């Protein structure tokens, strides 16, 4: 039988129940997060044990617990990837800044040399 979740629930994690999206309570999410950090990929047996040991989670269907952990691992991957991309972005931006500064310096240097060049030519012709 499906877990009955008649009222709208708070919390950041979402589950499907009878085709409807429902959220777990902050207490439930807190418990699940704690368990996740202890063990991100619990076995079926371990999950059953977790539900027995944690009364807050007792009204969640075992299937939903399994799904929650799957989604949580997926979210972790997404966060790590986003983090990685941000770090790459910072590096590329810093590199970009340095290169533009160097470019500016070199253009000025060439400008100066072109000026000197024409000056010397002019002086030589005198």
């Amino acid at each position, binding site marked *: 039988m499906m877990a009955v979740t008649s009222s709208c629930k708070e919390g950041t994690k979402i589950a499907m129940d009878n085709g409807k999206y429902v959220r777990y309570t902050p207490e439930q999410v807190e418990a699940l997060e704690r368990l996740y950090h202890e063990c991100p990929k619990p076995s079926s047996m371990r999950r059953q044990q977790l539900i027995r040991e944690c009364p807050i989670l007792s009204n969640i269907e075992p299937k939903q617990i399994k799904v929650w952990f799957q989604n949580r691992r997926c979210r972790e991957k997404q966060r790590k990837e986003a983090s990685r991309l941000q770090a790459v972005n910072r590096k590329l931006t810093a590199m970009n800044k340095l290169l533009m500064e160097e470019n500016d310096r070199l253009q000025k240097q060439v400008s100066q040399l072109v000026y000197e*060049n024409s000056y010397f030519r002019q002086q030589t012709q005198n």
Partner: protein
Amino acid sequence: MVMERLNSNLYLQNCYIMKENEKLRKKAQVLNQENQALLSELKQKLSKANNNSKGKNSANTIPDLNLSSTSNPNP
């Protein structure tokens, strides 16, 4: 996905600027060599002009070590 696009663009831009900077460095090197040559040419010219004027100018204080009779010996 937006971030990936941004990173790709940044990367490409960096590659482009690197190439441009390399071109500029080469150009600076070439110009510098040219300038050094022009400068030494100019110096030669100036020193020649200076030597030419030494013979004709009796007010010249630089002693003329040339033993030719047309030169003015300075004390």
